């Protein structure tokens, strides 16, 4: 374990990238930006000066995000970046590529427009959990009532607190077990017969569902929201496949698989604020015949129970970390690593998933400022590898579903929302 015990700590001028960061920084490009976004829509117009002040105050609490990616001879490393992150104007095309290795660039952006604040994080620095904690802290600081203290204890990070050492932890290496076997290689999936949209980076469709509408349905079926929506997602792909005329379908018929990120902090005890998420891949194989919705739901429900546990997830940690620790790869110069990994990613990871479904969960804010926030939305941009993403966030009594696709047609969203409407769940598209 000696080779993997170099954990980053506070007061360090630089530190090593964790396993996910290594991968994301090497594969990051204009087509795979590796950026995700959480936005908060407030009830009142943003005061940019006050928001900047809040960011200046809160950034001290997150020293592990106050970094700049620098290239070394063999690996990238995070260098402490004491510059001041600036609020920038929002854009119609969010999640654009970040010039990460440029001097003074932070691996995150805070964007604002009218009444919305958006955090765009590069996946190399953290996952949804870390980004959400940062945004919650920023909003709490921005919206804190003047002279009134919220006496209720909450988990919101505040300026002036000292970051725990455990927040810097490289949790992948901590829970890496050498003896565990790697997971099996995945078969290629059904490729959607649609052209890609070239006029803009991606198209976004937002749907809103009332929790009062969806809760009775999932309670009746005895599944979680993520399991239910994953099943609807798979069902939509299956509908598209079976809408292809019989003779053509033969060419297309292959398994349908989606990626569902898992917050590893719920499986392994870790308080890391860096990346600590992996994926599970519920799938159906239409070559065995057409599945009914309840068949798919059953498949997803049991799959999640089998796969989302310490034993199965440890296989993925083994696969990812093992590659990073390989002596030959370690002594390969960085520019060669980049080249090799980009080619390998294109060959190995293209067409292994039809889409991503990520549910960040129900977001809670302190009662004193809860009424100031209209909603939270989560957005995952698609890439050349995963061409459609569904990101879900819940706030108050609503669920916000954001589809982002690089296909020209909105067929998946159409099938997805139509299925929900058929099941009696009202959907509003904004």
């Amino acid at each position: 374990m000696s080779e993997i015990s170099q954990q980053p700590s506070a007061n360090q001028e630089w530190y090593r990238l964790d396993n996910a960061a290594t991968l994301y920084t090497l594969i990051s490009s204009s087509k795979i930006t590796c950026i995700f976004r959480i936005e908060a829509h407030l009830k009142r117009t943003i005061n940019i000066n006050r928001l900047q002040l809040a960011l200046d105050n809160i950034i001290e609490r997150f020293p592990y995000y106050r970094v700049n990616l620098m290239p070394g001879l063999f690996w990238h490393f995070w260098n402490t970046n004491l510059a001041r992150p600036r609020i920038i104007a929002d854009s119609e095309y969010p999640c654009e590529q970040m010039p990460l290795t440029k001097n003074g660039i932070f691996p995150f952006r805070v964007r604002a427009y009218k009444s919305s604040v958006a955090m765009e994080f590069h996946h190399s620095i953290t996952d949804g959990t870390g980004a959400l904690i940062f945004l919650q802290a920023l909003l709490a600081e921005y919206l804190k009532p003047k002279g009134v203290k919220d006496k209720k204890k909450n988990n919101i990070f505040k300026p002036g607190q000292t970051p725990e050492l455990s927040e810097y932890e490289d949790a992948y290496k901590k829970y890496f077990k050498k003896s565990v076997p790697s997971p099996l290689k995945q078969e290629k999936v059904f490729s959607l017969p649609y052209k890609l949209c070239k006029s803009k980076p991606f198209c976004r469709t937002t749907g809103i569902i009332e929790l009062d509408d969806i809760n009775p349905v999932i309670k009746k079926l005895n599944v979680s929201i993520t399991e239910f929506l994953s099943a609807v997602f798979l069902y939509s792909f299956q509908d598209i496949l079976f809408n292809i005329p019989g003779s053509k379908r033969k060419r297309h018929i292959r398994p349908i698989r989606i990626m569902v990120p898992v917050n590893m902090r719920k499986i392994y005890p870790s308080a890391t604020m860096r990346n600590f998420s992996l994926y599970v891949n519920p799938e159906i194989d239409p070559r065995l015949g057409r599945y009914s919705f309840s068949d798919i739901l059953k498949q997803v429900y049991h799959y999640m129970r089998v796969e989302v546990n310490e034993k199965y997830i440890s296989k993925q940690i083994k696969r990812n970390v093992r590659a990073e620790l390989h002596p030959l790869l370690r002594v390969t110069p960085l520019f060669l690593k980049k080249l090799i990994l980009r080619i390998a990613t294109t060959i190995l990871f293209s067409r292994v998933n039809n889409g991503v479904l990520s549910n960040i969960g129900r977001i809670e804010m302190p009662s004193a400022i809860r009424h100031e926030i209209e909603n939270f939305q989560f957005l995952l941009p698609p890439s050349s590898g995963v061409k459609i993403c569904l990101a879900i966030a819940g706030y108050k009594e609503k669920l916000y579903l954001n589809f982002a696709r690089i296909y020209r047609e909105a067929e998946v969203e159409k099938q997805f929302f139509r299925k929900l409407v058929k099941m009696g769940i009202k959907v509003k598209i904004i």
Partner: protein
Amino acid sequence: MPYCSQCGVEVEEYIDVCPLCSTPIHKSKVIIDKKNLKFPDKPVIDKKTGILRFLAWEIIGVALLTAFLIILLTNLITDLNITWARYPLASIFTVWLLATFPLLLTKNPLLIALFSVTTIMIFIAFIDIIDNWTVDWYYYIALPIALLLIIVTGLVIMLSIKVKKKGVNIAAFILFGTGTIAVGLDVIINYALSNFIILSWSLFVIIPILLTGIFLLYIHYRLMRIRDVKKWFQL
């Protein structure tokens, strides 16, 4: 709330076709309220900063105009002609131009530098010309000195911005720049006075400046190498 007859989903008031299936949405005509668009067409510009810049330009302008008029009228009343006032009036006008470029016309530092340099060069030429309406010292003293100052300052600024690690190396660059200006001044003045290119007093300036600058660079890059070696070669 309007909804799509095909998909069954509700849509916003201002939507004409369903975002999912492109079916036309039947509804009473609603004017699209541009205020409700989700994203800006252009990046948000802090309008307040623009107003403040204009106000600063206006105050400077009024102050300079007051001084301009006082000098002009004093000269006209006493001499019934514009004589000595030509120099302060040209200076005031130059200051007004120098303030106008960054405050009103452009924020691009390169353009500001270009405008400012051109203005100053024209101003110096004007000062040379207005005493007897001939060019005396502009070409062989003012122009070479001004060019030397501009080129050396520009190089020092560019180098200081370009270097990745900033520290005492910036002080070394400034020292080298000062040394070059000293040597240049020496050459230009001697050539203007005696038509010979010779170095006199600048030798006593350039030698200590060179040695100090090299020492500062050595300290900077030696220390930086010790600090960087570990992260650069991490395996």
